[in-house]
């Protein structure tokens, strides 16, 4: 008669052990999934930081390098915003590219000099918290993106640039 009691006891111990193992498996799975999700989130966040910090700067830097000709680069302010003006001559006519920040986006306006287009007519390039252009010394232009993920770069301007 003692045998079935022992067997019942060992059965329940076995069941408990299995249950504990199963619980361990569930906990481990949850841990792995949470860990993976957190890493994925961090990677995404860092990519976003990289994008917002570097893309705007690289875009403007390339534009400046492209149009770096004598007297072609100037910085001025309008409505409290820094505006970078890049001038160029195409088929005898003067054209200007304005790069500036307006309504949460960095915008670009390409127009013939003197055309009645306003800053509102610029094409939004990418979302940002703001951008500043500073002619630090003759020949050095500092481009700075604002916000938590903001970054800055110095550019050697061969045309020496000029504040207006």
């Amino acid at each position, binding site marked *: 008669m003692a045998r*079935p009691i022992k*067997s019942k006891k060992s*059965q329940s111990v*076995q069941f408990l*052990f*299995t249950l504990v*193992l*199963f619980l*361990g*498996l569930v906990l*481990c*799975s949850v841990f*792995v999934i949470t*860990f*993976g999700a957190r*890493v994925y989130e*961090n*990677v995404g966040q*860092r*990519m976003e*930081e*990289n994008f917002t*910090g*570097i893309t705007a*700067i690289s875009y403007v830097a390339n534009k400046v390098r492209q149009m770096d000709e004598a007297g072609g680069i100037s910085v001025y302010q309008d409505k409290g915003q820094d505006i970078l003006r890049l001038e160029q001559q195409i088929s005898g006519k003067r054209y200007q590219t304005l790069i500036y920040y307006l309504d949460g986006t960095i915008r670009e306006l390409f127009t013939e000099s003197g055309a009645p287009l306003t800053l509102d007519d610029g094409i939004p390039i990418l979302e940002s918290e703001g951008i500043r252009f500073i002619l630090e*010394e003759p*020949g*050095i232009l500092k481009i700075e993106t604002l916000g938590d993920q903001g*970054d*800055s*770069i*110095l*550019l*050697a*301007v061969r045309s020496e640039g000029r504040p207006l």
Partner: protein
Amino acid sequence: MNQRNQSKSQLFMMEFLIVLLLFAVCSAICISAFVRADHISRDSVQLNRALTLAQSVAEEIKATGLVNGEVPTYFFNDDFYVRIDRVVEDQILIADITVSRKDDANNRICQIQVKKYLPEEGRYEGND
């Protein structure tokens, strides 16, 4: 009947342990992949920032043609240690810009070289 039940339960336990073992191996692989991904993403952010900094220093050297004293040979910012090695050869200023971690100067993140033609090479008074 009892014995049959016991062997069944032992079989179940064996199966369960094998599943656990497999799970442990898979999770170890996954966790190491996650950790690697995290490291790569950190390194990529750091490399990007270090490159931007190195480019800025390079542009400053290109703009001003700094030869003596105006740019320190090394400097720190919040996160990085920047070392500038300059030499003039045949009227060409060659500057090697090395960016390392601030806490570990030997751990190089990136290095770029900038060259600038110096017509007035005579002004140069040696490397610092």
